[in-house]
């Protein structure tokens, strides 16, 4: 009898505990969000800066585009410029002078009007050499901006092409015609900052002041900064002073810097997140089969490629570079190895970047590859190429690609490739010292124009690192910058691509695709090349499956 009582006592305790737990589980974020209109957003990483003039990451963009607004905004589907802080603009006939008319009701979060002087202040701040802004060169399209930024001249002497005509009229004069200038304005380096706030914290020439903390941050965007807990959450709330506040349907966004894709997926599956930043590559196939309504594949403005070190044997010889490139079956790579909807890359610039699509220059021809390699071996009196080291930074994804290529080259050319994975910072310092022969790389465009890709291979560009330089290439790129119409520009870009394909300092492999999970209740969200999603058009609607 005693025993039974004890047992039933335990049972009752267990039941009570469970009942208690069950009663305290609240509905999930996604369920609550339909009423609250709060978007729960997987941010991927904690941003290093929330200062638009010092920021350098996608995560920072995702937050800053909620807090601040540039002269123009973005169409949610095409990312084409639409009126932003400026309600209209005029472009001069030589297409070098842009006059922006700011809207009367554009306001900072504290109610101050957004003025032309604020923009002058902001552009001057990011170009100030002592601030050390990494993206200041984005503003070099402005006339004389470079001479001020390099410290050669003072602001007055330099006469930079930015001027406040009156409180609400801003004139920007460019160095060259820049067809993508309006698109460029949507990069956070062009976002305005609130001068009194910056001055209050002494941040005009100093990084790392607390002006970006909640309570201090004053922006002009559709949302204002509410909370920032490092590695936990950044919350923004709809800003009633925003000129287009009526359009904004979300009442807030919570950004979670979850770095692991598996953790993000668990968060998504339990209704904690509406949108994830990534999907683990092992999970793509499963999710595609089981939950096609969640997983989204969207083209992304980026190229995955390998660099050759053209200054050291064997890749100082064009034939070896060509042989390696011709024996890579890119189609097989994306279809059988990557399986994430990526596109094989036969040129460097992703297709339809700002209207430009390069013709395929890098092909697949293993027989030709074999011939080229044999000719090289014969010239050098070799029977076999010495083993080649392939460097990549430690990651499962990079390893998979490297192993696939290793097998392809072994089969087609009989080359021994040694895979050498390195911790990220070690990898970066090795590559930048030129201490490699073949190395993995990737490039994500900053704005939708071929220039953001092709400038890499200009002689002496800090991102080139292959040792390759070509006068014709530099010339073609400069001509593209100065070209007067799109057709001419594209001809020069095509010339650049052709030079890359004939000289092959690089080996393009595939164009990126952005794979993410998104809850069906997220509306007003469209696939865009830069993965930008203007939040004022986003809202939450629909049934939530229990």
């Amino acid at each position, binding site marked *: 009898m005693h025993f039974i009582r004890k047992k039933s006592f335990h049972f009752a305790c267990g039941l009570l505990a*469970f009942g208690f*737990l*069950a009663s*305290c*589980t609240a509905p999930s974020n996604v369920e609550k969000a339909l009423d609250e209109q709060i978007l729960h957003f997987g941010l991927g990483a*904690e941003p*290093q*800066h929330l200062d638009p003039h*010092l920021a*350098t990451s996608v995560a920072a963009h995702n937050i800053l585009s909620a807090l601040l607004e540039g002269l123009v905004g973005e169409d949610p589907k095409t990312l084409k410029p639409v009126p932003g802080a400026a309600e209209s603009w005029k472009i001069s006939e030589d297409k070098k002078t842009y006059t922006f008319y700011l809207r009367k009701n554009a306001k900072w979060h504290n109610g101050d009007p957004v003025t032309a002087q604020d923009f002058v202040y902001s552009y001057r701040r990011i170009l100030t*050499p*002592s*601030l*050390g*802004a*990494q993206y*200041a*060169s984005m503003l070099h399209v402005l006339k004389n901006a470079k001479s001020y930024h*390099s*410290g050669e001249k003072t602001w007055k002497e330099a006469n930079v092409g930015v001027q406040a005509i009156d409180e609400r009229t801003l004139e920007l004069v460019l160095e060259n015609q820049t067809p993508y200038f309006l698109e460029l304005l949507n990069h956070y380096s062009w976002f305005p900052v609130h001068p009194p706030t910056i001055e209050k914290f002494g941040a005009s020439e100093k*990084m*790392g*002041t*607390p002006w*970006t*903390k909640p309570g201090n941050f004053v922006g002009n965007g559709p949302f204002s900064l509410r909370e920032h*807990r*490092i*590695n*936990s*959450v950044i919350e923004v709330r709809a800003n009633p002073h925003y000129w287009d506040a009526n359009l904004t349907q979300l009442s807030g966004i919570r950004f*979670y810097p*979850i*770095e*692991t894709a*598996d*953790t993000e997926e*668990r*968060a998504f*599956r*339990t209704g*904690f997140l509406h949108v994830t930043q990534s999907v683990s590559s092992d999970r793509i196939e499963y999710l595609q089969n089981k939950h096609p309504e969640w997983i989204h594949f969207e083209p992304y403005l980026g190229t995955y490629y390998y660099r050759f070190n053209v200054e050291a044997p064997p890749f100082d010889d064009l034939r070896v570079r060509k042989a390696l490139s011709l024996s890579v079956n890119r189609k097989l790579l994306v279809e059988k190895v990557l399986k994430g909807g990526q596109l094989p890359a036969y040129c460097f610039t992703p297709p339809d970047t700002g209207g430009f699509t390069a013709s395929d220059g890098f092909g697949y021809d293993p027989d030709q590859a074999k011939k080229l390699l044999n000719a090289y071996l014969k010239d050098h009196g070799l029977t076999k190429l010495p083993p080649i080291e392939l460097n990549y930074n430690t990651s499962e994804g990079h390893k998979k690609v490297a192993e696939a290529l290793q097998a392809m080259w072994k089969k087609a050319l009989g080359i021994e490739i040694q895979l050498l994975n390195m*911790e*990220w*910072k*070690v990898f*970066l*310092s*090795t590559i*930048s010292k030129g201490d490699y022969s073949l190395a993995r790389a*990737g490039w994500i465009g900053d704005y939708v124009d071929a220039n953001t890709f092709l400038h890499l291979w200009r002689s002496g*560009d*800090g*991102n080139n*690192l292959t040792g390759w330089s070509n006068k014709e290439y530099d010339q073609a790129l400069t001509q593209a910058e100065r070209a007067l119409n799109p057709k001419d520009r594209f001809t020069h870009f095509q010339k650049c691509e052709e030079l890359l394909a004939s000289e092959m300092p690089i080996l393009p492999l595939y164009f990126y695709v952005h794979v993410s999970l998104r809850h069906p209740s997220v509306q007003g969200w469209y696939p865009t090349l830069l993965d930008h999603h203007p939040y004022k058009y986003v809202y939450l609607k629909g049934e939530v499956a229990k």
Partner: protein
Amino acid sequence: MKNFFISRLLQAIPTLFVIATLTFFMTRFAPGGPFDSDKAIPEEIKIKLQSHFGLNLPLFDQYLLYMKNLLAGDLGPSFKYVGWDVSELIQLAFPVSLSLGVSALLIALLIGLPAGMLAALRKNTWWDYLPMGIAMVGICLPSFVLGPILIMVFATKLKLLPALGWYSWTDLILPSLTLGLFYAAYVARLTRAGMLETLKQDYVRTARAKGASPGRVLVKHAMRGGLLPVVTYLGPAFAGLVSGSFIIESIFFIPGLGKFFVTAAFNRDYTVVLGTVLFYATLIIILNLLVDFLQAWLDPKAREQR
């Protein structure tokens, strides 16, 4: 006893000094630096950044400056989380790791101690085999397996508990279980071994012979000695628990110290590496000292040696 305490505290100073020095130079000799990034940074901007953080000074001067600031209690600014001081970051993250660590430790003790004692008292019966078998599984099962399993059962399927985050008290349950069960398994095995050893002792037999009740023998006589190995283990284990676990923090998305500890090394965030290492070292020194006291209290032999 007082002398012992003072001498141990004084010993801590050179230890911390050596740790700070070694860590400082080791992080600096690792290839790459905090400002290396995917996209090339113009040389003049890199110089600006370096001078902002004092990295333009000769290495030894940087070391002297760091040590000087350290003596004044200043751990410096973070390179990665610009605008935040290392001490601010530790202040934010340590309470999180502390509450997670303490609750994991409670779980470890609440499960581990009774299970171990029971196993020792009922040696070679099912009361021994079953908990010890489970404990073995617990020790072998890594947290990155146990964590997702617990999430799958309690969050995804039963929808009883949150899968991740650090926003309400329910968020504490699954991670502290994941972390605590591993330690519970260890504690159980150590308790069993320690208890078996003491139960064999003459003084326990004497106590029994004098007619003390089994409960009294256990609590009053055997437990003190039997728990010694557990106490020795608890010091470093507790330091490990409260200084955060990178894996648990990643699985459950918890803003604790472990994440700073690991990612700072990857980011070459020199000051955060140094700050967290020193913090961890201080914690271990203090906890080891506490363990010594506890041992002295539990074990008269250890007391006499001092």
